[in-house]
């Protein structure tokens, strides 16, 4: 009796199958999102190069000019940023480390694109779009490294070069929290969305397992009935 109560699967025979279905579904989402991000990384790289060539192709000294450092940054820094996440997405799709590296990398892309487009306020929306995109994983933990990168960047630059992030030389020492606060504001909704998504996935898996068990029971009953009729 005590054996029965300590084994939940014995109480609910479909639970094991439901967990298996849930994990399979979760892995397929992780793998698919990893592939999407691998493509997105490549697209962002091309976009960064095109933006640099279009916005700041050359830098000038008097009458002479040479290729602008932004173009080299887009090509080589963009390539360096992309190497690891694309490698992991192709070789280790679905792994936790792959998602975390992609999360950090996506924020690095936000920073690079902001620089390549001359600090346009519109490009800062890339941060918020990326967070929403990361929520496609339905794994709320992925949002943490991205948030840490954004908050850490603002904290460090606010301490050592405040003009670059706040436009004033002596900002309020807590202003970085205001910027990070908006990211956390979005995180709250995305985390809630991820948790709800996971809950729904569990419910779907449980229903599928129930259906599967019922189907097997029905098939067994049909077989028994057929055997009974055949033996009459």
């Amino acid at each position, binding site marked *: 009796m005590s054996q029965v109560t300590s084994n939940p699967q014995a109480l609910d025979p479909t639970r094991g199958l439901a967990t298996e279905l849930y994990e399979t579904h979760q892995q397929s989402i992780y793998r698919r999102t990893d592939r999407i991000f691998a493509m997105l990384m490549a697209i962002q790289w091309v976009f960064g190069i095109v933006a640099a060539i279009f916005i700041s*192709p050359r*830098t000038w000294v*008097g*009458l*002479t000019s040479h290729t602008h450092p932004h173009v080299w940054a887009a090509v080589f*820094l963009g390539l*360096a940023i992309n190497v*690891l996440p694309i490698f992991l997405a192709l070789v280790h799709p679905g792994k936790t480390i792959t998602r975390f590296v992609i999360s950090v990398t996506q924020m690095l892309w936000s920073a690079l694109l902001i620089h390549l487009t*001359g600090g346009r306020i519109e490009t800062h929306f890339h941060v918020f779009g990326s967070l929403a995109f990361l929520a496609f994983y339905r794994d709320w933990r992925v949002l943490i490294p991205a948030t840490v990168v954004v908050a850490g960047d603002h904290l460090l630059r606010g301490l050592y*070069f405040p003009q670059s992030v706040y436009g004033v030389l002596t900002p309020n020492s807590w202003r970085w929290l205001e910027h990070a606060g908006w990211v956390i504001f979005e995180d709250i909704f995305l985390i809630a969305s991820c948790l709800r998504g996971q809950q729904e996935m569990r419910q779907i898996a449980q229903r599928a397992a129930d259906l599967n068990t019922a189907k097997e029971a029905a098939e067994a009953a049909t077989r028994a009935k057929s055997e009974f009729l055949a033996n009459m």
Partner: protein
Amino acid sequence: MRHSLRSALYVIIGTGWAASVAIGGWRLWGFESTAGIPARPQPMWPADSKLARNIAIPSLVLLIHPHCPCSRATIGELARLMADVHEKLTATVAVLCPAAAAEGWEQTDLWHSAAAIPGVIVVADIDGRESGRFGAATSGQTFLYAADGRLLFQGGITESRGHSGDNAGRSAILSLVLGLSSAPPGQPLHSPVYGCPLFDDSTACERGDTPCPR
């Protein structure tokens, strides 16, 4: 054993990746945050300048290189500034036009963007003469003179090279024009200027902007 070797390899790859990204980011950061050649400002409006000065309200002079992509952000900041001061400031943008340049060399998008800002006059700075009179050496160098011709501010109006957004230079000019702050006599407010050098090394040396190589 095989597992630990693989783990070590991944640690090395991860460290190498982080280091290469950090180095690249640091170099980009270094380029953008390195200020240009500082100006040798005139404490009073240069008497030999051909630019018009308003004797009723402050006058702003911005000197730019017409092909410098970094100065696009400067023109954007000027547009924001002019929108904020509401006709309490006159502004002149002097666009560099070297004597050796081809005809129309200075007629770039920067020229047209500056000309489209209400209250801004755009002129060609033939052979950098006005830059010389005002003491500018870097594209984006901005001067603010009071109605009586006294220098109130000199420097840049972007936060870093080619980077738009709130910045100390624009804030300083805005507060001076609106009378929210003042510059002590002989001590104009200043900020770093970010942009392309207006002149090549030999010209900058001849003009005294930079030390001459020995």
